[in-house]
């Protein structure tokens, strides 16, 4: 038994690694060695704590102290003060923005208070590269139980009754999906994990794989047993090198202990897992395109049916689930479907992980019970809008989703409510926008992404989305007309109805939802040729108010293109032909003499 008196957990998620968490760990270990404390203090690299805004995170146990924005140089003070003298390093504690008080543990931080961690239960707690720590947290116990019971249908029923629905976007009931795949007889079936995660800004799946890879392996084996598959395949984008490395280590360790491979736990069931690397194309997250890509063909979707459960990888029945869906499985089996289905709303059970981003104070990864309101997520967990600005909209569902406005702030978040509100759950991207965001530009941003990512197989998507993009571009340049708005709406409907796969069928959603919720803003662009948010450069111009200008020349000196001229101590002027509308003069002027028209 170990005799460590302190555990120091250092975040090893991609974000914190980029801001030097490996060096922090090395410095801590060096200081620990210098003080002869190697038998007393254990330093552990964990997965993501979620509070990326304040990373790198270092947590000290057993006194549960949460240090934020730690630097390698802080190691000395942490060891000398906290570990040796038992005094917390106050300057590294989180400052509550409301009360300006320092908070020493995460339970008293708004960011964590409303969260409920099921899929992320081990992230930021265990060392993802050590199977022993996973086993100590009941790891592989669910698989052992399922194999001991030896009744696939019973396990499928548990998942069905739990109410778990797919977290990859579609929200299909997971138990039912497994049941369908289990009933299709074949000499070989496949259990596939979709770790493509192509939504811009999303990193839920990456964090689960980096922080708790074994939970996904265990769940895949359970699923494999239920549907009768002996092979598991994980399709992961090559842009996730850390997640890939942790998966490789996890697979190796599980094989060594006999938890993957032949005759697992003497049950007669064999299951092994292989990784397939994707090149990072959004459409390859769509299950049929993903399967074609795994087969070595072009990553293009095909019409469903046949569904993967009928004809999947190598034409064999295959079951595709998302990473986060899998991460829920072992806990449901150990704690029971009754427990799981007691969390959430009527038709959406459990929790959802969101990547919270945009103009919000606490950017990061959160897991919340279904049914929480957007207001709680944005103002309590997210800490409100940055810079005290006004909330305008929140985008969910990525390029397939839509924007929700103030009137939906108190709507409980679940699959059905988000759809009814004109957006969707999607895989968990959540981008918060303030009053300075132009909604036409937001729609244009997503269409730009779609045009880039469309595989080109069907014309509605290949040509239609390009036309949508051009119309939006024209509007942001102030050249749009009312007719263009009607054209946008009609074309959107046609694309939705005729595109081949989910990508094209949902790609007009950002356009339709912004038109629905922000019609006035579209009108302002085409009728008054104004961008109310002041974001569209072509629709704004900077001017100098001669009454306020004292001729100090600061604007002229800072203008990168030399567009401002004037005599000393006399009002200056901006040459509109040269101005690139960068806004530097506006920021630099101390006399409020520059205004935007």
């Amino acid at each position, binding site marked *: *038994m*170990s*005799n*460590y*008196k*302190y*555990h120091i*957990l250092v975040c090893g998620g991609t974000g914190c690694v980029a801001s030097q968490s490996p060096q922090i760990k090395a410095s801590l270990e060096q200081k620990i060695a210098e003080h002869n404390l190697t038998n007393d203090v254990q330093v552990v690299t964990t997965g993501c704590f979620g509070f990326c805004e304040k990373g790198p995170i270092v947590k000290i*146990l*057993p*006194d*549960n102290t949460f240090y934020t924005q730690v630097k390698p140089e802080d190691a000395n003070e942490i060891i000398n003060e906290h570990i*040796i*003298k*038992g*005094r*917390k390093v*106050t300057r590294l504690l989180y400052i509550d923005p409301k009360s300006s*008080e*320092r908070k*020493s*543990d995460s*339970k008293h931080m708004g960011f964590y208070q409303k969260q409920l961690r099921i899929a992320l239960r081990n992230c930021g*707690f*265990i060392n993802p590269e050590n199977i*022993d*720590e996973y*086993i*100590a*947290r*009941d*790891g*592989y*116990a669910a698989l*052992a*139980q399922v*194999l*001991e019971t030896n009744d696939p249908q019973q396990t499928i029923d548990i998942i069905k009754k739990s109410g778990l629905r797919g977290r990859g976007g579609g929200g299909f009931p997971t138990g039912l999906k497994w049941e369908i795949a289990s009933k299709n007889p074949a000499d070989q079936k496949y259990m596939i994990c979709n770790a493509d995660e192509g939504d811009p800004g999303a990193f839920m799946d990456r964090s689960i794989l980096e922080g708790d890879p074994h939970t996904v392996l265990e769940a895949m084996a359970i699923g494999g047993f239920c549907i009768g598959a002996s092979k598991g395949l994980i399709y992961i984008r090559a842009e996730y090198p850390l997640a890939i490395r942790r998966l490789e280590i996890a697979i190796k360790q599980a094989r*060594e*202990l*006999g*938890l993957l491979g032949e005759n697992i*736990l*003497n049950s007669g069931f064999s299951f092994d897992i292989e990784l397939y690397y994707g090149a990072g194309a959004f459409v390859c997250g769509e299950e049929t395109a993903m399967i074609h890509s795994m087969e070595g063909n072009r990553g293009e979707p095909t019409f469903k049916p046949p569904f993967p459960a009928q004809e999947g990888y190598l034409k064999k029945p295959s079951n595709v689930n998302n990473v986060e869906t899998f991460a829920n499985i072992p806990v449901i089996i150990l704690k029971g479907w009754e427990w799981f289905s007691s969390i959430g709303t009527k038709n959406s059970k459990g929790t959802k992980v969101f990547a919270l981003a945009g103009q919000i104070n606490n950017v990061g990864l959160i897991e919340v019970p279904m049914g929480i309101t957007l207001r709680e997520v944005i103002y309590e967990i997210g800490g409100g809008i940055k810079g005290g600005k006004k909330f305008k909209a929140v985008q969910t569902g990525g390029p397939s989703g839509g924007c929700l406005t103030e009137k939906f702030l108190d709507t409980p978040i679940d699959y059905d409510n988000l759809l009814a509100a004109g957006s969707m759950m999607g895989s968990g991207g959540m981008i918060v926008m303030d009053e300075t965001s132009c909604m036409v530009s937001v729609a244009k941003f997503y269409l730009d992404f779609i045009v880039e990512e469309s595989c080109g197989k069907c014309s509605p998507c290949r040509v239609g989305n390009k036309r949508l993009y051009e119309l939006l571009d024209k509007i942001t340049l102030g050249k749009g007309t009312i007719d263009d708005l009607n054209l946008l709406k009609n074309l959107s409907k046609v694309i939705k109805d005729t595109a081949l796969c989910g990508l094209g069928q949902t790609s007009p959603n950002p356009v339709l939802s912004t038109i629905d919720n922000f019609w006035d803003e579209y009108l302002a662009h085409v009728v008054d040729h104004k961008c109310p948010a002041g974001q569209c450069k072509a629709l704004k111009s900077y001017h100098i108010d001669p009454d306020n200008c004292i001729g100090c020349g600061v604007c002229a000196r800072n203008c990168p293109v030399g567009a401002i001229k004037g005599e000393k101590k006399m009002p200056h002027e901006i040459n509109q032909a040269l101005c690139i509308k960068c806004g530097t003069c506006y920021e630099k002027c101390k006399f409020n003499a520059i205004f935007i028209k």
Partner: protein
Amino acid sequence: MEKIKSLSDLKKKREELQSNLKLREQGENIENAIVVKVAMATCGIASGAKQVMEVIINECNKRNIPAVVTQTGCMGYCYAEPTVEVTKPGEAPIVFGYITPLKAEELVTKYIAGNELLDGIIPVNYEKIDNK
């Protein structure tokens, strides 16, 4: 590495491994734990605080007492070292003075496990920074 061959193998392994994470799990739920702080400044260490801490940890582990044992700086009772502060959930902290390793065992069995007080209690007359 030896393979795990059955559910009971796995359970056995889990039990062996669980103690490694106990400290983390108790720390996450510190508000339900008995918090024991051993004063480990120069004066404390000189009078045997290190051994006292070992004894308390081992005795608590033996008895499966959910106690979180940490060290702290000088509490200002240098004349009474080694000193140990015990906070039970929802109760005010109590500081015990002159805790020798032998006394430490008694502290665990009598006060931490039971609720009996020992001699050498020092009234709490300082404010803790953690509560701020």
